C-alpha cells in the first residue's frame, strides 16, 4: 500500500538555509545572497548552492543587472546553463526537437564565455570549472576537452564530488562516452577518496547509469553480476554506510543512489538502511526521475519493493 506522499523531490528542501537562499534570489536580495556564499567554504556545498540559485526560473534578469563580481558572474553563468537545460528538457536526445537544441545552444554560448573569464582570472575557481563541465557537455565540445577541464579543476580540488558526478554524465554513452571509460573513472575517484566521503557515490552513479542505460534482459541481469554487486557494496561501505559519512548538501542524492541500487539488487538490509536515512519528507530528483518520469512513482515502486509496502 503506497502512502500518499508528502515527499518533495527537492534536495534543497532538506536544508532550511537553502530554502532561504532561494527566497533571497526570488526577492532579488543580493546582500543576503552574498552573505550566504561568504559563509560557505566547501567546494561541493558551494557548487550545490550555486545550482539552487541557477534553477530559479527567471533569475537571469536580476543577475544580469548586478555589478560584475565573480560571484554574480558565476551565478549568471550557472543560471544560463540551467535555462539551456530547461529548453532542452530532460528527455533522451531523440525526443528533443531541432529548435530545442538550437535554443539550448544559444543559452550555453552565452554562458560559456562568462565562465571562461572566471577560470581565466582565477584558474583555481573550482566551482566555475565544475559548471564548465556541464556547459561543455551541452555544447558537445568533446570528451577530450571536458576531460581537460576536469583535470584543470582537479589540480585544485582532486576530490570534488560534484565535478566527478558531472564527469559520470559526460562519460556515459548517451554523451558519446563509453561504459569502460565511465567505470574506470569512477573507480579512480573511489580509490583516491577518504573513507566516509561522497566520492565513492560516483561508483554507485556509474552503475545506476549503466543499469538504466541497458534495455530488456540485459537491464534485468546487470545488477545481479557478482562483480557489480561487490563494487556497489564497497562504494556504499566507503561512503553512505561509513560511520564518518556526512555528505554535506548531497546526502539525499547519495542515499538515493544506493537505495535504488540495493533495492533493485535485492539487498534488503542495506536498502532499508538507505531508505531509513532518507526519512519521510525529502529526496533528490536524481536518481528517482531517471527511473520514472514522476520521481514520486519511481521512489514508491522501489521503496514498496524493499519495505513490502509495510510503510
Amino acid at each position, binding site marked *: 500500500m503506497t502512502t500518499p506522499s508528502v515527499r518533495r523531490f527537492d534536495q534543497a528542501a532538506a536544508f532550511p538555509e537553502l530554502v532561504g537562499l532561494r527566497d533571497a534570489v526570488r526577492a532579488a536580495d543580493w546582500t543576503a545572497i552574498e552573505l550566504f556564499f561568504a559563509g560557505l567554504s566547501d567546494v561541493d556545498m558551494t557548487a550545490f548552492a550555486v545550482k539552487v540559485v541557477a534553477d530559479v526560473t527567471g533569475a537571469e534578469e536580476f543577475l544580469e543587472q548586478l555589478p560584475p563580481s565573480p560571484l554574480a558572474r558565476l551565478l549568471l553563468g550557472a543560471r544560463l546553463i540551467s535555462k539551456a537545460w530547461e529548453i532542452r528538457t530532460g528527455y533522451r536526445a531523440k525526443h528533443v526537437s531541432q529548435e530545442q537544441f538550437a535554443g539550448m545552444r544559444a543559452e550555453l554560448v552565452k554562458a*560559456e*564565455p562568462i565562465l*571562461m573569464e572566471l577560470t*581565466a*582570472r582565477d584558474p583555481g575557481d573550482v566551482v566555475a570549472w565544475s559548471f564548465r563541465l556541464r556547459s*561543455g557537455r551541452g555544447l558537445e565540445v*568533446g570528451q*577530450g576537452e571536458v576531460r*581537460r577541464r576536469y583535470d584543470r579543476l582537479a589540480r585544485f580540488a582532486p576530490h570534488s564530488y560534484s565535478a566527478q558526478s558531472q564527469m559520470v554524465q559526460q562519460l556515459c554513452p548517451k554523451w558519446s562516452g563509453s561504459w569502460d571509460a565511465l567505470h574506470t573513472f569512477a573507480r579512480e575517484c573511489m580509490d583516491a577518496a577518504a573513507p566516509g566521503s561522497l566520492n565513492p557515490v560516483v561508483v554507485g552513479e556509474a552503475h545506476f547509469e549503466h543499469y538504466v542505460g541497458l534495455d530488456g534482459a540485459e537491464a534485468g541481469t546487470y545488477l545481479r553480476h557478482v562483480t557489480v554487486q561487490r563494487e556497489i557494496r564497497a562504494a556504499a561501505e566507503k561512503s553512505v554506510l561509513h560511520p564518518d559519512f556526512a555528505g554535506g548538501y548531497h546526502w539525499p542524492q547519495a542515499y538515493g543512489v544506493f537505495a535504488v541500487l540495493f533495492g533493485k539488487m535485492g539487498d534488503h538490509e542495506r536498502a532499508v538502511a538507505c531508505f531509513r536515512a532518507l526519512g519521510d519528507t525529502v529526496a533528490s530528483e536524481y536518481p528517482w526521475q531517471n527511473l520514472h518520469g514522476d520521481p514520486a512513482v519511481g521512489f514508491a515502486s522501489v521503496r514498496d519493493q524493499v519495505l513490502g509496502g509495510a510503510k
Partner: protein
Amino acid sequence: MIKETEISGIRTLIAPGNGPLAAGLVFRVGCADEPLSRRGLTHLVEHLALHRHGLIEHDANAATGITTTHFYTSGSEQAVVSYLTSVCDSLRDLPLERMAAEKTILRTEQANRPHDPLLVWRYGAVGFGAAGYPEWGLELITDDDVREWAATRFTRENAVLWIAGDVPAGLELTLPSGAAHPVPAITSTLPSTPAYFAEGSGKIMLSAIVERSARASLFSMVLERALFRALRTEDGNSYAVAAAYVPRDDEFATITALADALPEKQDAVLGGLLDVLTALRLGRVDADELETLRDKAETYLQRPEAVAAMLFTEAVDILYGRPRRALADFSAELAAVTVEDLREVAVQAMDTMLLQVPRGERADWAGFAEAPMWSEQATTGGEFPSLQKKDFKLILGYEGVSMVSPHGVLTVLYAECVLMQCWPDGARRLIGADGVSVSIEPNVYDVPADTIAGIDELVPDERKAWQPARSPDRIPQRPVPPPPAPAAVPRTPVVRRSRMILLAFGALAVLCLLLAAGSLVDMLTNPDIESTRLWWLTLVFIWIGGYFLIRVVVGLRSLRGPRRKP
C-alpha cells in the same frame, strides 16, 4: 648607427658589421602582388635571376615573400660584389630559355609547401589572399610576363640595398628605372572577427592583425610561451607549439600561432588554446615572465646576426613607406613594455583573430563567428544534377557557375573569376576573387562537352590555366548505372501448373453444374419424388460448381496480370 645613402641609384642602408661582410638587395614585390592566374611569377623571376650565378660556394640565397623579394649574401668583398652584380645583370636579361626547367623545379618545391588557408579565408583570392594559394599560375606565365615583371618590379626605385660592414670596392649595380610600388590593397572576406573556420586536422592555427610595435612583438613571445606551458607542459596534448610576429605593411603586423594535436585530443587542444587567449586578453601575464621574455628579446638584439636582420627590416620599412626607427628607440620601447601593454595587444589580437579548427570542431561557444563558407546566391542557367549525391546540382549560366547543395550555394561569376583551371578530360575549377571555388566534373554532373566549351568562351584566356592530363584513377568516374533487373525466373512452369489446376477446377465446375442441372431436370421430370433431399443436392452442386467457376475466373485474371509487366 645605420647610415642611409645611395649606391648606383639604389637607396642603401649601411651599418658597421660585427662579423663577415653581409649584404642584401630587397625588392618591393612578392606573391601578394601577383594575380592568381600568374601565381608563382615573382618566385620564377627569383629562380631565373640566380641561374647564371651557377653553383654558389659562399653563403648566398634568395627568398620570395608575401610582399618582398630578397637576395642576400655574406662572405668576402669579391664574393658579395660578384653575387649582387650577377643578380642585377640577370634581372635585366633573364635566361628565358630556362623557363620550362625552372617551372618544373618550382612545381617540385611547391609539392612540399602547403597552401595557407588563413590567408585565403581572411583575404580571399586576391592580394594577400593570392599569396595563400599554391603557384597555380605557372602554366600561364609567358616570356612576356616574366620580362615585364622584371622590368617593372625589379627596379632601382622599387629596391633597397643593405650592407653590414664596409661598402665593398667596385660595387656597381645596374637596375632599370621604374616606379616604387605600394603594398597591395587589403581585401577582406570576413564580415566580423573574431571568426573561425574548420579545415584539415591535426592542428589548430590562428592569425591576428595587430599594431607594429615592440610590445606587439613581445606579445607574440608571451603567447608562444603561454601556449607551450598550457598545451604541452601542463596538458601534455601538443608537441609543436609556435607563435610569430611578422610586419604585414607599414602599419600592421600579423601574429600567427600553431599547436598540433592528435585526432582524439584536438578538442582539448582547441579548448586549452582558447583558455590561454582568454587569460591573455584579461591581462593575466606574470610580471616575472614578462621580464624573462624581455631579456630574451634584448639578448637577441645583441647577437651578431641581429644587425643583418635589423637592416633587412629597415630596408623593408623604406619600401613600405614607413618612417625608419632607430634601434635605440626600439630597445627603449622594449624596455618600457608593461603587463597592461600586453593586455592591450591581446585585445587587438582577439578582436581581429581568425582561427582554423580541425574539421568537426566549432568555436562559436568561445565567441567566434563562423567565417562565411557560402555565396549569397546562385546564378541562373542550365541545371545539372549530381549523379552521385542527391540534392546537389551545378548551375551553369552566362553570368557564372554555381554549385547548389542542401548546405549552401557556391557561386563564381565570370566577371570575378580570377583563375579557371582546365583539364583535358573536361574538368574545370573556377575560383572567384572572394576565394569561393566551383569544380565542374563532367562525369559527376553529366555536363556535355559543348557546355564546357561555352564556359571556356566566357572566361578570358589569360585566366585559363591548362593543366596536364590527370591519370585515369584521379578522374571521377561516371557512377555505374543501376544494375538491370535480375533476369526473370522462367515463369512458364509456374504458369503451366496454374493452368493445369485451372483446367481441373474448370472441369470440376462443369461437372458439378451438370450434376446440378441433372438433378434439377430429374426433380422436374419426376415431381412425385420426395423433393427436399434433391433440392439440397441441387443446391450443393450449384455451390460447389460456382466455387470452382470463381476460382477459374480469378485464376485467369492473375495469369494475365504479370504478362503486362515488361
